[in-house]
């Protein structure tokens, strides 16, 4: 029985997908390069030019109140400790079966490679830091202060009770210890006619046109735009890395 469930607050409206949190986490925990990312940041887009939005998701382990990973583990290697509610993997007991990964809706258990003997690891809620009275590294690293941390009930008092974001798995399944603020609505400060704009962008008189019909822009076949949807469960290390990289560099 957890004394006090600690959790995260993630402000999606401030997240730029810069990955500082993820790199700071790897730095602190001395993790190797590659798919062993305790914290994954996903960036994808929806819409078509010029009505496009960037979507960002921030996914560590949410240290769920009903952790599916713990239930699925045949080696009893995963337990939820009592003081902070952190869900921890004992890698000495782990047999590498990856059933925890299959069970977790968020893909929190991570592995150093596709090698089937790899042990499972994941975000520890910076448990060692909590014991010293310090917050998790990611929370203090975010340059835009998109993160907060504390007892979940306190966070809910401050930030509200939203536990679901568009495209994320339903929070009722595992009860993640997180509250969110969703990305904001945009407002038009001045009128803008996207179709008119597209017709303007089509031409480059006296040079040849840039494109020939609006559907060149608005019709997007499935595999044309790579980052068009959220995929947080991965069939391979390469897929995890591809999806958790952005194109800002």
């Amino acid at each position, binding site marked *: 029985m957890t004394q006090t469930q600690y959790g995260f607050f993630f402000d999606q*409206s401030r997240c*730029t997908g*810069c990955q*500082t949190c993820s*790199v*700071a986490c*790897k*730095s*602190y925990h001395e993790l190797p*390069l590659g798919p062993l*990312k305790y914290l994954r940041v996903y960036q994808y*887009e929806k819409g078509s*030019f*010029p009505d496009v939005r*960037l979507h*960002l998701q921030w996914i560590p382990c949410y240290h769920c109140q009903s952790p599916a990973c713990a239930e699925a583990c045949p080696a009893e290697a995963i337990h939820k400790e009592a003081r902070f509610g952190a869900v921890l993997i*004992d890698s000495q007991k782990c047999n590498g079966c990856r059933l925890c990964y299959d069970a977790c809706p968020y893909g929190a258990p991570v592995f150093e490679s596709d090698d089937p003997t790899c042990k499972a*690891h994941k975000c520890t809620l910076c*448990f*060692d830091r909590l014991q*010293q*009275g310090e*917050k998790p*590294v990611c*929370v*203090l690293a975010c*340059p*835009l*202060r998109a993160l907060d*941390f504390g007892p979940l009930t306190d966070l809910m008092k401050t930030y509200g009770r939203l536990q679901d974001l568009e495209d994320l798995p339903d929070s009722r399944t595992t009860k993640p210890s997180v509250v969110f603020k969703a*990305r904001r609505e*945009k*407002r*038009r*400060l*001045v*009128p803008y*006619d996207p179709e*008119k*704009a597209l017709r*303007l*962008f*089509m031409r*480059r*008189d006296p*040079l040849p046109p*840039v*494109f020939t019909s609006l559907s*060149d*822009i608005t019709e997007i076949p499935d595999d*044309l*735009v*790579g*980052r068009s949807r959220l995929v947080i469960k991965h069939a391979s290390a390469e897929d995890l890395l*591809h999806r958790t*990289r*952005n*194109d*800002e*560099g």
Partner: protein
Amino acid sequence: MSQSACGTQSSRDVFRYTSCGFHCFDQCVLKVRVRDGRIVSVEPDDTIHPGVAREGEHPPGGLGSTAMVQYRPCAKGYAMVREIYDPRRVIYPMRRAGKRGEGKFERISWDEALDTIARKLVEVKEKYGPYSILHQPYSFLGQSSFPLAPWFGAGVAGWGAHSTNGFQEPQNWVYGKDLLEGMLRFGHFALTQDETNIFKSNLIVLWGLNPVSLMSSRVGHNLLQARERGIPIICIEPRYTPSVEVLADQWIPIRPTTDVAMMIAMANVWFKEDLCDNDFVEKWVDPEGLAKWKAYVLGTADGVDKTPGWAEPLCGVPAETIREFARLYARSKPVNLSVSLSMGRQFYGENATRASMYLQALTGNTFIPGGTAAAELGLWWGRTGGALPVVDWQQADWEYVAPVLLAMYKWPRAVDLREKLDAGEISTEEYNNLIGNRADNPPPHIQLVILESNNHVNNLPGMNQTIRAMKKVAFTLVFSQFAGSPSARYADILLPQIYSAYEGRNGGCGLLWPLFTTTINLGSHFIYRQKCIDPPGEVRPNDWVWTQIARRLGIVEKYNPRMADVPYEKWDETIEEIYREAYDTWAKRDDIAALNPPGWEEFQKKPVFRFPLEGDPYYPFKHEVEAGLNPFAGTASGKIEFYSKVLAQGPEYLRTHEVPPGSGKCYGAGNLPPMAQMTLGGKDTFYSEDAAKYPLLMSSPHSYYRVHSWLDNSPLLRNDCYRHAVWMNVADAKARGVKDNDLVRVYNDIGEMIIRAYVTSRIVPGTVAIHHGGWYLPQGGTSALMPDGVDGRGAPNLFTHEEDLPNTVVGTFPCKGLVQIEKWRGAR
């Protein structure tokens, strides 16, 4: 790794504090964990508000001083430590073992390296004269950065800066002063603002600026707070960037290189609807110049009424949007307009940058709380919090001042064209014109190039020209951490480069990166960079290197008298003593003592000093306003000038005169319009006739994951965080049968590369983007365009033309290029 043990801390750990120190203006706090002499990790800033996740959120009365917040590093700050231990790192002096460009080196001793360098300096000076030695970075703004120039008696200075000419020169024409020289001459950035000035604005316009991807921790965070407070923000730019997503209420997509058309059309609306701030204009804008520009805008001069309807087919922004935006702008005073450097980094770029200054003047926004002078780089360095500790190195008086003999970034052209001058194919005057040297000046004869911890080969426009230059000179010296860096590959002597953030003591004797570091001139704080570890191998600090060379040249007592006889084993501790002395002296100043600074020992526990910036935030020209001085005393009319009479004197005048006199700045012959106008068809612009062959206009924005090109080879950032790819609009990709992640060949008449494609709706069609700073890495075969090898990584400067005519040398530090793209079917 057993998680049940769950500890990554150790009782053996010690902590040090430092700051990144590369060419980044933010200077964040790096808390470094060191274990057994090795850096284990970088951790968040705990020197203020330790453990607070979201500090100062919307306090009543506005966000307070920007000094009193955590200085949170970005991903680069956390990732950089791993580079220290990269096995590819250069840790001994090296000598070229093949041809320049092959990147083959062999290890030599320090003695041999230093003897060679000293000998070459003497030889080149004797054979080619004093204007033969070029050092970078920072032989700019009218000075030479060659540390030994003043006593060795050789060196060449450049005017302008590698990134800001398209802004700086217009600032001089319009306001009579400019941003960077303002720093040097007046000690503050007169034209810029405190970050908190934006909280007094009614509308924030980010034109071509992506602040969260450049300096997220302070500028980005402040803008977020402004947005959350309900201050409207509009982003006008060719890409839907992360800044657009988190900051902007609205994105107005626009074609790159057409911004001035929209600005002109906005003014057209204001003139016709009488929306200008007439009181301000009457008081502060030169009426003669205004009348000329107004006639241009309204078409009374050339018969073309430059309405929103005129602008819309050029820039892609619908006329109704331009009109309503103009009206919103006019009624929203104070308007905080920030225009990015990129707008000046293109052919005719100085038109857009000065038009942005006109917009603020016409609406009375130039120097009011909440307003801006528009063209202050979009980086906000308001005022100096206080004096910084300064070391007195006691260098001898200068015996030689390097003359200004070219525009700084023209040095590769100066080298490349020199043989034509020597062969009599062009005259001295023509040669000087092409490099920004006054016609009757002696021409430079650059034969020895020193690239000290910078990557000019990669980062200047027209890379193949820079490569030719590096092959032509008599001797090249490069300091670099990596032999694979494009600049390092052309070195004759390659010296290891210390990480001054971590490894010791670049004291900054007469040069760069002193140990008290701060955001350049913001002066809201400074950080003393503590030494964290010993460098590997035989890596030595840069000032140690120059001191040993100076000794061989017989000038060490003049260059570095305080450390002339200090052996390397005592180097770090001596520098520490010198810095302590500077700190103690600083702490005794009346203005500083009043702030109760800690003693040195106490300061070393958390060596960050923050100035309490009191009072109202700085806005441009605030100090002049409050002192009752005329901010525009530097212009001929004493007012804001829309029309430059100096430029109006034409090409013959410009090639034979400095602007202003005595500055060394010579724009060269060419057509430089005296006032902002829209000109179609400049090189590497959207309407260039070259677009018939190379139809895609490429921009090269900065990347969050590099400072210029630094960290391009960081395995952590490259592998984990981002994919370096060419951004292509859906329509352009479809037309070429290209899908996301396909390999594509990007090429024009001067370069080619193979790179992956990022297919997206986030970019204006007909334009592409390749982030600046990707290294040129030859992979695979050579070609006619790429004799040193086709680029397999993606360096956009392969495509940018370093050319000027028919324009002058002013605005063209181009970061744009026209390219064609095709799907790549070959092997990589």
